[in-house]
């Protein structure tokens, strides 16, 4: 995997990684063959010296079941952090080192779902297994408990999420330097996904969790997918509405990392305004808001847009100029406004890429980004509950208490 040009590896993060050595990459990596007492595999009746089977592993477990049990036994499940329709999140810790906390996300077996393992779980596992980056939540292990419940062991991120900080205007104050640090972490995470050919497709403040050291981590890969081959159709029913770009609202079947970049732009704007930038109530309302705030897409500013099957615009608004943005987002400086405008370019082909974002001059201009240990944070039990709430949610939908009751229905069959 590619290394980020901007990622800073702190000593403690490296140490932590070593402690929580991933045990899931190779099926045999952590398996001690001495404990093999299975009668599975190629039955071999040679007069091998009989290894007394440890009483903890029943002889009837097959090799994969034994590995699973070994994985499971490494963790102790603690109190429940939250429960939703899709998953239950528990606090947990390493059995061998109780001070190392983890979050255990138990995927619920869907009673009415007769299609086997949920697509969200498949997608989340597929991508988190492969992506390892300081700004992406780490999947430490996977195991099944009580027969066929899927448990994802994730790193524990106790300081809530960005949404919490944005909303708590009474207690949390932050400035341009703090925004720059958070945006840097988010951009590196998105860049890393795209560098590895993964589209996240659900970037929003409550999927950006905060670690104990202040590091922001992109979570919830339940809607992620790998880049499609040319000509392959993709579903446009992704990304939570407020963060969804026009190409998806117009039902484009072929799209790129630009959809994630748009989401990053809307999160950027939200960080500055401390309120959702484009909180549409319906998909039609969302198009209207975008046209008003950013401009109406036309064949001039976005060649080909009128050919998209869902193309419909309410009225003609000119594309906003820099002074318009300066008035609203001036706190991040002229360079910051420039970067924001480039992430919110209507035509996805002209929109800045995550890689180009990292090369933008805003990162070098004043003020310098805040060191992560000095970032504003929110402590206490509410933060704990937040991780529970964030992980249990179904991907792609807004929380009920966040204005819109019309949660987007996802078409997983597409």
């Amino acid at each position: 995997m590619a290394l980020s040009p901007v990622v800073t590896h702190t000593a403690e993060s490296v140490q932590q990684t070593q402690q929580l050595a991933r045990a899931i990459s190779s099926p045999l990596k952590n398996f001690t063959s001495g404990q093999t007492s299975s009668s599975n595999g190629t039955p071999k009746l040679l007069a091998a010296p009989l290894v007394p089977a440890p009483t903890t592993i029943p002889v009837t477990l097959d090799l994969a079941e034994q590995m699973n049990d070994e994985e499971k036994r490494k963790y102790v499940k603690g109190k429940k952090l939250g429960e939703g329709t899709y998953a239950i999140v528990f606090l947990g810790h390493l059995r061998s080192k109780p001070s190392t906390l983890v979050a255990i996300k138990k995927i619920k077996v869907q009673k009415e779902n007769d299609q086997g393992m949920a697509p969200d779980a498949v997608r989340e596992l597929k991508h988190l297994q492969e992506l390892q980056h300081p700004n992406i939540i780490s999947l430490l292990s996977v195991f099944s408990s009580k027969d066929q419940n899927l448990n994802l062991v994730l790193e524990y991120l106790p300081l809530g999420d960005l949404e919490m900080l944005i909303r708590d205007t009474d207690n949390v104050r932050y400035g341009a330097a703090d925004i720059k640090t958070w945006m840097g972490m988010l951009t590196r995470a998105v860049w890393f996904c795209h560098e590895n050919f993964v589209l996240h497709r659900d970037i929003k403040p409550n999927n950006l969790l905060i670690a104990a050291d202040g590091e922001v981590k992109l979570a919830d890969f339940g809607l992620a997918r790998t880049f499609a081959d040319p000509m392959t159709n993709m579903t446009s029913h992704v990304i939570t509405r407020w963060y969804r770009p026009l190409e998806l609202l117009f039902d484009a079947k072929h799209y790129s990392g630009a959809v994630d970049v748009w989401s990053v732009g809307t999160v950027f704007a939200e960080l500055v305004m401390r309120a959702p930038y484009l909180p549409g109530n319906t998909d039609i309302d969302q198009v209207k808001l975008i046209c008003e705030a950013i401009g109406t897409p036309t064949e001039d500013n976005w060649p080909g847009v009128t050919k998209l099957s869902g193309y419909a615009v309410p009225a003609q608004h000119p594309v906003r100029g820099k002074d318009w943005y300066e008035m609203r987002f001036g706190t991040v400086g002229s360079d910051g406004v420039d970067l924001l405008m480039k992430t919110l370019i209507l035509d996805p082909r002209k929109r800045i890429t995550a890689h180009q974002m990292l090369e933008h001059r805003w990162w070098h201009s004043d003020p310098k980004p805040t060191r992560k240990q000095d970032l504003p944070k929110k402590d206490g039990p509410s933060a704990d509950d937040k991780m529970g709430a964030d992980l249990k949610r179904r991907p792609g939908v807004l929380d009920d208490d966040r204005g819109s009751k019309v949660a987007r229905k996802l078409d997983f069959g597409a």
Partner: protein
Amino acid sequence: MMILSTPGSNSPWPTKTSGTGSPASSACGPSPRTACASCDPRPTPSRRSRLRLASPPIPPPDFLTPDEETRLVKFFTVELIRAAQFCEMPTEVRATAAIFLRRFYVTNSVMTYPATDLLKTSLFFGCKAEGYFYKLVQFSEKFPNTTGEQILAGEFLLCQGIRFAFDVRHPFRALEGAILELRRRLPDEDSRVRRAHGQAREILKFSPLVTDAYFHYTPSQIMMASLSIVDEGLVDILVPTPPQNGDQSKAKEHAEMRQKIMNTIADCRRMLEEEPPERMMDYWSSPEIVKAIKPLRKKLQKCRDPDRANLVNLQRARREQTVNKEKKAAKLDDTGVFGEELGREPKRAKLDKADDVFGPPL
């Protein structure tokens, strides 16, 4: 293909209760594969009587050898590819499914879990992993005598067997990239590049899936190996040659690296050449291969794990067990949250009990 043998088994599973299919030929003790070759196949009268007294009357079945298992896994992989072709599944789905099946049988034996069922499950799950969602009913209808329950019964088993690693990287995209590059470098040799493209793709759709190539080589190495089979000169063009003028030591380093790359490609190529794509048809039409596989499948029928041969029943038993355990778990504390060790299946408990000195019921 590496098949894991598990040494030190203190309870070999094949304590079959019924006499069906226990070959009489392996009547000389617990290790038929090794002992039979060196001893008289028919025990002397005295030995026979001793055997009758000392051991259970049903001898262990004649197990498959690792080599036979490898051949069967290959055979079932071809069956999977054939099924995928029949269902007109995208190339990536079929390749992913084939690799899932092979990965599963790295840590499992075809004698333990039935490959005929798991290949359908692999296909179904391969679709899911590639984001190509099939309705279960639509899928199961494509196969004779197959219900959705049968396909799902093995799903969790498969996922656990491949340790929940669902991302398989294929050489197909690498090939498309290489072809674009070759078109640019060889603008006047369109037909040559086009021919290589088609042939290499046919190789990639078969040879790496039925050999161990995916376990040993990267997607780009596999792609280069397939190109080298159809047109070696093209690989020579693609792998950069050392700069002619410049730093001597750097050039030497480069040359050594290039040699290393070429050697790896050659090794991979040898592996792919064992199973050229033309062989795919042979697997179900060439009389010799069909004839060679038949006795293996018959042998497999006789040495399957009776507890795990029917995945649907196994799955139902597990569900029941979970329900029972949940009732019990109500009073358990911390350990209960995690669920206990998976208990032994009820059926096996019965089997073990039957394995006493007086033998099974008649």
